[in-house]
């Protein structure tokens, strides 16, 4: 998995903005109260590589515990990777100097799942949205105020909302505020961690459409963390499917949904709910649950749940195979 080198020259012309190579994050498991002793490692992320291209959206899907949120945290510099590199415009960021790290932090912003806990209830909207600009940009009061007004308009609110507090807004509106705040420093990449799953159904489409409009307007790239496959299909250009800290399949959205190849990807698609009662689904319900990342299975990590399991799956780690340019899968079947 560490040697993963997708090379989709034929299809893409957009430059690579952000690139992860063999990213790993292992958390120590300690024992003992005063003298703590490391008794094991939780391999939350274990060698993932992907690219975020300018103006495009990469989706990372997987079940809880697959490492998708830890990956996002490493990209946001909230966690130091154990191994591997993150390059932003060709520059490795975790070893960069303070100035470069600062610039990176303002170019990569985040929108989180729960707009009830991600906005400070004691700050007025004006200050909430201006806060990243105060830290990162050198603007006058007047300019700042104009920017806040424009951002509020861009996310579908109006400038008079600037005087209100977060509790005066509904869930969908709060998520709009969080988006405005992320956009305020004109980032190149926004990490969206389950941006619509806490919202009402009728509001989700509003926010998804807003995000896609803003992507065109601000030419920003998204890294979308999601568990809902249909959302990923709607919003993403590229999809990475993660299982137990590794990427098992990676490709362009259309290619991946039309020719899902890894048994886990297939199982995820079969388990997803149909959009019409007449859609007959193949019965491919996975047995068991995701094993603990403390002690992941030998060989292919999916083999204890895989319906196509073969002898070699429990022994050898599968190699990365490129099925089509840019569509890669790591499975012994190919």
């Amino acid at each position, binding site marked *: 998995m560490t040697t993963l080198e997708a090379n989709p020259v034929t299809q893409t012309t957009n430059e690579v903005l952000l690139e992860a190579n063999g990213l790993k994050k292992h958390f120590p498991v300690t024992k003992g109260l005063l003298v703590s002793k490391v008794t094991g490692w939780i391999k939350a992320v274990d060698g993932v590589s992907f690219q975020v291209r300018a103006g495009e959206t990469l989706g990372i899907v997987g*079940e*809880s515990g697959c490492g998708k949120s830890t990956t996002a945290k490493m990209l946001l510099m909230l966690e130091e990777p154990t191994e591997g590199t993150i390059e932003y415009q060709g520059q490795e960021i975790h070893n960069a100097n303070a100035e470069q790290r600062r610039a990176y932090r303002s170019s990569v912003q985040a929108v989180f799942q729960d707009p009830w806990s991600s906005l400070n209830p004691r700050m007025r909207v004006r200050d909430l949205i201006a806060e990243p600009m105060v830290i990162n940009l050198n603007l006058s009061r007047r300019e700042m105020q104009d920017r806040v007004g424009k951002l509020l308009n861009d996310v579908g609110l109006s400038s008079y909302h600037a005087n209100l507090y977060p509790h005066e807004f*509904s869930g*969908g*509106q709060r998520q709009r505020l969080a988006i405005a705040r992320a956009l305020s420093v004109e980032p190149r990449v926004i990490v969206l961690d389950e941006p619509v799953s806490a919202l*009402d*159904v*009728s*509001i*989700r*489409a*509003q926010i*998804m*459409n807003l995000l896609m409009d803003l992507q065109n307007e601000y030419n920003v790239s998204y890294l979308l963390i999601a*568990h809902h*496959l*249909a*959302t990923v*299909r*709607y919003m993403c250009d590229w999809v990475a499917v993660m299982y137990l800290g590794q990427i098992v399949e990676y490709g362009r959205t*259309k290619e991946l*949904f039309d020719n899902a190849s890894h048994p886990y990807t297939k*199982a*995820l*698609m*079969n*388990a*997803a*709910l*149909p*959009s*019409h*009662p*007449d*859609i007959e*689904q193949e019965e491919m*319900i*996975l*047995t068991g*649950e*995701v094993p603990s990342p403390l002690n992941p299975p030998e060989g292919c990590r999916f083999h204890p749940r895989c319906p196509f399991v073969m002898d070699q799956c429990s022994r050898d780690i599968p190699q990365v195979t490129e099925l089509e340019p840019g569509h890669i899968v790591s499975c012994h079947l190919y």
Partner: protein
Amino acid sequence: MTTSTTENTSPVVLQVDGLKTYFETRWGTVKAVDGVSFNLRRGETLGIVGESGSGKSVTMLSLMRLIPEPPGRIVDGQILLEGQDLVQMTDKEMSGIRGSQIALIIQDPMTSLNPVFSIGNQVGEAIKIHQDIPKRTVVQQVLDVLRKVNIPAAETRVRDYPHQMSGGMRQRVVGAIGISCEPIVLIADEPTTSLDVTIQAQYLKLLKELQEASNIGLIFITHDFGIVAKMCDRVAVMYAGRIVEMGDVRDIFNNPSHPYTEALLASVPKLEEDVDRLYSIEGQPPTLHDLPTGCPFAPRCQYVMDKCQTTYPTQFDVSDSHYAACWRLE
């Protein structure tokens, strides 16, 4: 439009007529459920779909007679469970029925299980309350019901505490409590929202098997049309405390007749096909203490007419088994 092929002619077990549940608050009376009627047959699955504030959960709590009183009160209507009116029952009579004839599976297994009692204790509690049987038989029944919900190694897991189990297993335990006294009506309130997709698929399959095995009338409270498509025979769509459309699941998906249903279905991304742009419903769901006169969906409706602003629409039949409350059908 396809006609429903599985016409269910089993007897009606639950009949709800003109149910009204109001809450007195300092902002005035909140009509959380305002005249809801439906019926449920044995072995049938009814989906109640709605957003937060639509009244679906208050409907569920009213059926269980679990409305906190005050501030809430069932002000009108009947809930007939095999002919007995639950609304008229005393608290004591209701305790005998709640959990044994009509049972509930709640959303969040982390908060609905007590962390300081073992699984066996909690499943056994319901059995002990409703059946006068010796302790040894209770233990046996607990094991039986845990096996029914496919908990592996039930003999050892019965001594586990909730924190020792995974989310999927905990949800199964909550399911086991629900079916432990063989209810005739089971209400599942968003039972899979906290589960992962592959675990959700396992759980939905299990619920279906349990329903078929005991011919339970199942009510699914959800906001997810995917669950409705997979599980339900009939659907009631709720908005602002009332049922705005009701019909067989295929009628609802093929011929949504209320603009709200139509818009909701169009705003959900599809797994099976590429959609260029989703339809998005403007505005927010209404707040219940300040409902507009006329149709509460009118401010967000793309087909809004003058009449909608002034008068609440009556129900119009689309077909024998399908109605919607919208003036466009007049």
